[in-house]
């Protein structure tokens, strides 16, 4: 029952949102694709881990080692087959195809796993916490997630700035046509970007599933939180995604402190406020004078 506790939990929750949002941010930054199936792909990762823990009896962390490479491959194939064609058909077509994918995944999951709610075992760390004071208690698991989120972001940052793949990614994001003219295979770059995005989504999905209960229809709500985190933090910036996640997390937990029902609503309100402030700052509310338009 303390505001400080709420803020700390918000920051930690922000770590999960940031991890979830990373893939979404990457795909939009490189390819201008808004992947509406992003939350659902995270959920797929959770269900895959669930299969392994239930039937192979391994710990979730071990299952993760199998889930990640599968997610990488899945993302690569997804781009090369579905999304590449969608991109060529038009800028807004990927929205339609990923929306369709979202629905297909939800229904497939429901078919194979039933609508029952599940949860993934999180091991001993899952229940451990650090009692700092009478009003502040920090769960180690959430700290782990924040740590992993920062690790992934740092890793991606290093990939983007220090490796050839990173350079090709940034170049293709800036100007795909010119990148091709200097030898970069834009389609290959896109495929690798999606592979990374789906792998981080699966990672986030598994941790989400360890932290709370999940069912086949949890995809869209996770998508919304990821989307809000990306927009709050500023599109195109990896560290912005972390900040966005944290702002969203804090907004939610502080709102919940006021009244538990306000958890999601306060997050949405902050998201809306950020959008409005940005629009006003960009002069969007001033009438655009048509007489200033120059035709080529």
């Amino acid at each position, binding site marked *: 029952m303390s505001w400080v506790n709420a803020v700390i939990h918000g920051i930690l929750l922000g770590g999960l949102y940031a991890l979830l949002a990373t893939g979404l941010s990457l795909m939009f930054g490189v390819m201008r694709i808004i992947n509406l199936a992003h939350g659902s792909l995270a959920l797929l990762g959770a269900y895959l881990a669930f299969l392994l823990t239930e039937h192979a009896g391994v710990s979730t962390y071990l299952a993760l080692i199998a889930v990640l490479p599968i997610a990488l491959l899945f993302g690569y194939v997804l781009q090369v087959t579905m999304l590449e064609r969608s991109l060529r058909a038009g800028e807004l077509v990927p929205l339609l195809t990923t929306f369709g994918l979202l629905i297909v995944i939800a229904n497939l999951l429901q078919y194979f796993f039933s609508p029952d709610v599940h949860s993934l075992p999180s091991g001993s760390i899952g229940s451990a916490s650090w009692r700092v004071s009478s009003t502040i208690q920090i769960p180690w698991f959430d700290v782990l997630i924040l740590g992993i989120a920062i690790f992934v972001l740092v890793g991606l940052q290093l990939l983007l700035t220090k490796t050839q793949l990173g*350079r090709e990614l940034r170049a293709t994001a800036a100007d795909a046509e010119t990148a091709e003219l*200097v030898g970069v295979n834009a389609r290959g770059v896109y495929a690798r970007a999606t592979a990374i995005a789906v792998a981080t989504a699966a990672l986030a999905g598994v941790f989400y599933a360890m932290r709370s209960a999940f069912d086949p229809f949890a995809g869209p709500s996770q998508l919304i939180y990821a989307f809000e985190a990306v927009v709050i933090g500023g599109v195109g910036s990896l560290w912005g995604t972390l900040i966005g996640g944290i702002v969203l997390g804090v907004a939610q937990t502080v709102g919940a402190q006021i009244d538990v029902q306000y958890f999601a609503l306060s997050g949405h309100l902050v998201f809306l406020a950020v959008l409005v402030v940005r629009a006003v700052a960009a002069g969007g509310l001033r009438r655009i004078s048509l007489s200033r338009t120059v035709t080529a």
Partner: protein
Amino acid sequence: MTLLLVESIDARYGLLQAVRDVSLEVEEGETLALVGANGAGKSTLLCTIAGSHRPAGGRIVFDGVDVTRVRAHRRVRMGIALVPEGRRLFPALTVEENLLVATAAHREGPWDVEAVLEVFPLLRAHRSARAASLSGGEQQATAIGRALMTNPRLLLVDEVSLGLAPVVVERVYAALGELSQRGTTIVLVEQDVGRALAFASRVVCMLEGRVVLEGPARDVTREQVTDAYFGLARAGAV
């Protein structure tokens, strides 16, 4: 030997025909200048050769291989490099990163970052600067350097002197001259006809998508180019 063969190329932008039935041959080691008024189709032709524009008809044959349907990045790996109009550097990347991206071509050759900086020493001081912060001349040097990093056999250069101070243009052409000495085949589009005639071994003038004049640079006079450029020698005109 013929390095590049352009055969009856037609290229369109929507309903507008930009290149009409153009055929050209470029020998290895040659320097060819493409001149012509705005809208003559010169840039479109270069883009078609480089692979960033799909022709509506005709063939492009490079080193004996039909590359008409080959994607741009594969043509780069085969040895064609384009310095595009307007330079088109990657603005958020540094000079060095812009150069390094081009190693995606995976071609062996004498060109690497050091070699480029030797030819364009003005870039040394800016090697870690973002491309967007450079002056026009520095950007042009970087754009040429980036193309060189792919170790091309055929270098296509589109309007390299636009917006640059004369002294900078001199330097750029000196570098191009050196390249030619080393055996690189160069096709360049140039607004300044005098410079084109002085630099190239052959000149081609285009008008409204067609080739209207072609010949060795030393045999072609400025008057001939002027007539071809405006098409005014045609019947019924001035």
